[in-house]
Each structure stands twice: as C-alpha cells, then as structure tokens.
C-alpha cells in the first residue's frame, strides 16, 4: 500500500526544515497563549463570542453580502462576484487589461484568496508582472516556491536559505543578517511600488454595515500596494464579511493574538472608497472581488463551521503533525488542520479526502481556534465520507474486527491468541508500520478476565 502523501513527504524532509518549522511554530504557539491571556480577561469566552458572530454571519451570509455590496457601491468601490477561481481570475485580468492594455507591474500584498485561485500564474499568462511585496511571499516568488503556512509563508526556510536566494537574485552583497536581508528586499520592492499600475490585496474583514474593507499586516507593504498604484483590487472569500463595525475590535485582537502573538498588528487599514477629488493620494479605482469558489456548497453541509475561519494559522502552529512536516506535505494552499478540512470541503473528497487521515486527532487545533471550529469532529466526518467514497481506505479488515467485537466468545478466544500473532514471522502492516520505530506491546501482569472470574 502506498504511503499517505504527508508521511511520504515527512520522510524526505531535511532535518533543518523540520527544525525551522518546529522552532517557529512552537514560538508562535507560546506567544499566542501569552498574548491572549493578557488581552482578554477570559480568552475562552472571547473565542466563544467570536464563533457566535461568525455563525450569525453564516446564517445571514446572503443578506450581509448584499448589504456590503450596496454600501461599497455607494462609496464608489466596484463589487464583482466570482463564482469560482476561473471567473475570479477572468475578472481580475479584465480589470488589469482595461487599466493597462500593454501589461504592467502588479504589486501584490499577501493574500490567501489569491493563492487559492493561483492568480500570479494567470496574471503572468496575460502579460502582467506580479510582484509579491510581503517579505515572505517575495522570497517564495523568487525561489519559485509555494507558501507553506497561511501566515508565515516561508516557515520552512531559514536565513541561510534566504541569504543564498538574495545573492542569486543579485539583491545586494551576501549577508546572513536578517535585518540586512530585509533592507535589501525593501530597496528592491520600493522600485516596484513606484512603477506598479495595479495593487492587489486580500481582505481580512469586510464590514457589511459600512462597506469598509479591513486589512491587517505588519510590514507596511500592504498599505503601499493598496494606495500607491492607480488601481486597487481587493479579493476576499465571501465568508470574511462581518455584520457591524462594533465587531471589529474583538476580531482584530483575536487575529493579532492568534496569528502572531501580538496585541495589535503593526498596521490596520480601512479601505472605504477610492481617492476623492480633494484627496492627494490613493487609487482612482477600488475593486472588490467576492470569491465563492465552493464556499456556498460548504455552507449547507457537515463542514459549515470551517467557514468561520479567519486564517490566523494558530491550528497549524499547534498541530503536532504540521510541526513535523510543514505545509508543503499537504499538497494544497491550505495545510495543517484547517487545510485537512478546507481542502476536501472546497475541492471534493476524491481529490483531497486523504488529508483527513493525516492527523492523530489530538484536538489541539480546536482548543486554540479563535472561532472554535470543531476540526477533529469534521476530520472524523470526512473519514466517514472518504471511506464510503472508497478514498484513502486503510488495509485493516474492519468488518472482520467488527465480527469479533460483536461475538464475545470469538473476541475472548482471539485475545488469547494475540501472543501467537506476535510470534508469527508473517509480515503484516501492523508489524511493518508499527514496528519500524517501536516495539510491539507485550502482555503485562495478570489477565483481567481471569482475575475477575477467580475472585471470591
């Protein structure tokens, strides 16, 4: 039987990569706990409150999106509806073409929605030059790599890897000092901002009540991407809408604390409109692309709560499997616990259902989730669905096991024969899978049933 992709990937992963991932995720997890404890009197009830707001959003998604569209439109933001990634790419490329028929530089702020639709690929195919302006995403781009974490895209790299990449790209004299590397990237990217006609960003929260698009970041590149170019295109998954401005403080604290262990992100932008005639700066056009791409279907199924996700990455940071493997092991833009549910939910059980098996079901993800997504429960439901669909079935003869477990005398006789099975030289998956790293268990002490039967 072939190894599951996550296990196969882990086996060829360099120790230095595992070390980088483990160090970064452990640090982020510790910072998360410390910050949320300082920010909230009761982090548990804050998470509960946030989950309730998100459930309200999911219950009223259609009307909230219409309200958002009406308010955005009234300020001059042009709203586009994209049913899938093909239509999203078509819309975005179309906007770019009408702004710059001969191609142009597109300054890109970090956005998982644009990763999901593989926008860079489509922009390049249409003759545009996307430049990732987030430091991590920039490194991903020059290395022709893919992000391995939804918040920290280069969590799988260390500064020595980055130093080599920058030297190769001739960004400046060779250095391994993180601050100097950052300055080299900054100098390089400044030129892109100056010459970019179009800026593309994601959206963290969009407030239906006012039509305000809220974006959080730490590097300032997002602000430049959304204000310096003449056109700003914001791409958001439809589930990112929030009902009221009053909901923002809770979510801004939760995302900063859960993602990076900050009490507040360094920057928080509110985009309400294009540049007005009396304003010196800002884009002439702001476009909002509302991306469905499978979300409406998820809304009405067993995995509905996955749409509460605010993309903080806390579940990835705490997941023992993610820590050993990095995001690339999952073979999808969304990796770790969130990816193991979101990938099959969006792309189908046949393509991605196997990811539900790549979990020890430890439940740490649910415990840290700022919106209390019951990920372990959904992983179990996905396993059930995958089994029925014949996807990623293990070789264990469960129907035989069930026969034994429903016939007590067979069960008891079988247990008596266990030491025999251990002694047989016949290879079986339990022995090879288990036995590669561990010894088989041995019976220890007395047998309970015999002891019970002999009691006076």
């Amino acid at each position: 039987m072939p190894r599951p992709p996550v296990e196969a990937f882990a086996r060829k992963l360099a120790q230095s990569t595992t070390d980088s991932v483990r160090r970064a995720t452990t640090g982020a997890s510790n910072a998360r706990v410390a910050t949320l404890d300082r920010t909230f009197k009761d982090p548990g009830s804050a998470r509960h409150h946030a989950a309730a707001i998100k459930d309200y959003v999911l219950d009223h998604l259609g009307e909230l999106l219409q309200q958002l569209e009406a308010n955005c439109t009234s300020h001059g933001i042009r709203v586009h509806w994209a049913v899938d990634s093909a239509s999203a790419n078509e819309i975005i490329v179309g906007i770019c073409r009408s702004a710059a028929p001969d191609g142009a530089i597109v300054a890109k702020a970090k956005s998982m929605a644009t990763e999901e639709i593989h926008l860079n690929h489509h922009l390049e195919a249409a003759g545009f030059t996307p430049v990732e302006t987030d430091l991590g995403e920039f490194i991903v781009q020059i290395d022709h790599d893919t992000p391995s974490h939804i918040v920290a895209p280069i969590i799988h790299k260390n500064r020595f890897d980055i130093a080599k990449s920058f030297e190769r790209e001739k960004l400046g004299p060779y250095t391994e000092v993180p601050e100097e590397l950052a300055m080299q990237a900054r100098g390089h990217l400044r030129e892109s901002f100056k010459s970019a006609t179009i800026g593309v960003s994601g959206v963290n929260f969009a407030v239906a009540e006012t039509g305000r698009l809220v974006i959080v970041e730490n590097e300032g590149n997002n602000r430049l991407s959304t204000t310096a170019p003449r056109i700003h295109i914001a791409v958001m998954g439809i589930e990112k809408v929030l009902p009221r401005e009053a909901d923002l403080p809770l979510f801004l604290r939760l995302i900063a604390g859960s993602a990076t262990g900050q009490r507040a992100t360094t920057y928080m932008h509110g985009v309400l409109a294009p540049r007005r005639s009396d304003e010196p700066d800002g884009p002439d056009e702001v476009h909002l692309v509302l991306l469905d791409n499978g979300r409406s279907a998820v809304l009405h199924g067993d995995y509905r709560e996955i749409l509460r996700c605010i993309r903080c990455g806390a579940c990835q940071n705490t997941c023992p499997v993610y820590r050993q493997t990095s995001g690339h092991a999952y073979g999808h833009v969304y990796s770790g616990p969130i990816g193991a549910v979101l990938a099959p939910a969006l792309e189908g059980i046949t393509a991605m259902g196997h990811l539900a098996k790549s979990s020890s079901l430890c439940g740490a993800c649910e415990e840290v989730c700022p919106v209390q997504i019951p990920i372990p429960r959904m992983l179990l439901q996905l396993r059930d669905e995958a089994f029925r669909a014949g996807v990623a079935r293990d070789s264990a003869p469960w129907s035989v096991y069930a026969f034994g477990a429903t016939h007590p005398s067979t069960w008891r006789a079988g247990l008596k024969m266990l030491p025999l099975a251990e002694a047989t030289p016949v290879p079986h998956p339990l022995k090879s899978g288990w036995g590669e790293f561990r010894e088989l268990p041995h019976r220890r002490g007395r047998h309970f049933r015999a002891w019970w039967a002999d009691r006076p």
Partner: protein
Amino acid sequence: MLTCLCDAFFGEVGIAAVRMLEHVGCTVEFNNAQTCCGQPPYNAGDWDSARKIADHAKRVFAGSDAPIVCASASCTAMLREGYALLYPGEPHVQAYELSEFLLTKMNVTEWPLLDPAPKVAFHRSCHGRGIHLGDSAERLLQMAGVQLIEFGATDQCCGFGGAFSVTHPKVSGEIGMEKLNRIRESGATEIVSGDMGCLMHLGGLIEKQNLMLRTRHYAELLAEAIPAKEAKLATPAG
C-alpha cells in the same frame, strides 16, 4: 468498561481500577460479554463497522443502571462523543473517565499516601482534552503524595492516534520522540498517564530506543497506595 487494550495487554490497569472504585465504596459490575467501544473502525472512517460494535456495547451496558467507568479518556470520549456522532439525536451515553468519576461523582478529596512518594512525569492524553478532563488525574496523584515533574508539554500529543501510528509511522514516531525527549530533559524516569494507548505508543518507542524510562497508568500507582488489608479483600491470591 475494561477497554480492549487492557483486555489484551494491560489487565493490571483494569484490576487497579476495580480496586480504586471498591476503595471508595463502589460495587463494580463487569459483564464478560463486553468487548470494544468501536473506536478503531470509527477513526478509520468505517462507521458501519463502528455502529455494529457500538450496538453491541450499548446492548451489554443496557443490562444495568450503573454508570459506565473507563480507565481511559479515549474510550470514554468514544462512548460519550463518538456515539453522539454515530447516532445523531439519541441521548448521550453516561460514561465517565475513572479520575473524573472519582472526583465529580464520588467526591474524593483524599487518597492513601504512597510511601516513598514517587516522582513522575504526567502525560495528559488528547482524548482527555476532548472530554475536558483537565487535571483530574493529576489531582488524584497529588492526593497520594505523588510529585509531578514539570516538563512543559504535558498535553502535547504522544503521536499515537490509533491507525495513524501505523499509516504514518515516521510522523507519529517523531511526535512521540519529541515528547520523550522533553520528559528525559526534565530528569523524570517514569511516565504516568490515563490512557494505555498513549503509554503503549510511548512504551514501544522507549523499548526500541532502549531508553531508561518506564510507563504506568495512574490507576496502577493509586491502587498501590490502598492499604494491603483492604487490598487483600479485593485481590485473590496469585
């Protein structure tokens, strides 16, 4: 409920659990027709097989009004949470993890002291997290004078995950080794936990690597603290 692992390998844990329950005045029933809770096929996604086993378990336990107690958070979670998913809309099964039952149902506030007091590293099982056990087993151990050695990752997964340990042996083993390394750095020589699944996994790694660590269920420690005279009543010779 005995649990399949204690049935197959770790009978002493079941015996210790019975002695603990009798020590606090419970009358323990054991139906010899019980087998497994159904979790292995449930986790594998074969819910038809899981339901067959769960049906059997429900029939076995329907014969008595007594609450079900398991010396395992894993089986308790299956009975309580797993069955709720297998049988939507049906009332939850009344099942308790042993330490939870002793603290919340029997209101245990003291336990005979172990002499000499052992120093152990306590591993919290992930299913304990799932059913919100918190520190119930640690509290019982502390009542018996056991010293718990801090190693900073008590609720970190051991990597077992049932069939996951067989389908993903490398990942699972590395997760377990990370835990064992933390425990070894703390100077502890004994790991105590409330789930034999975790201890079977950690024990298998320990044996393969020849590490100087032993594993025990907390019930085995706490049963040892029960005075011999009382124990004699409950334990036959041999």
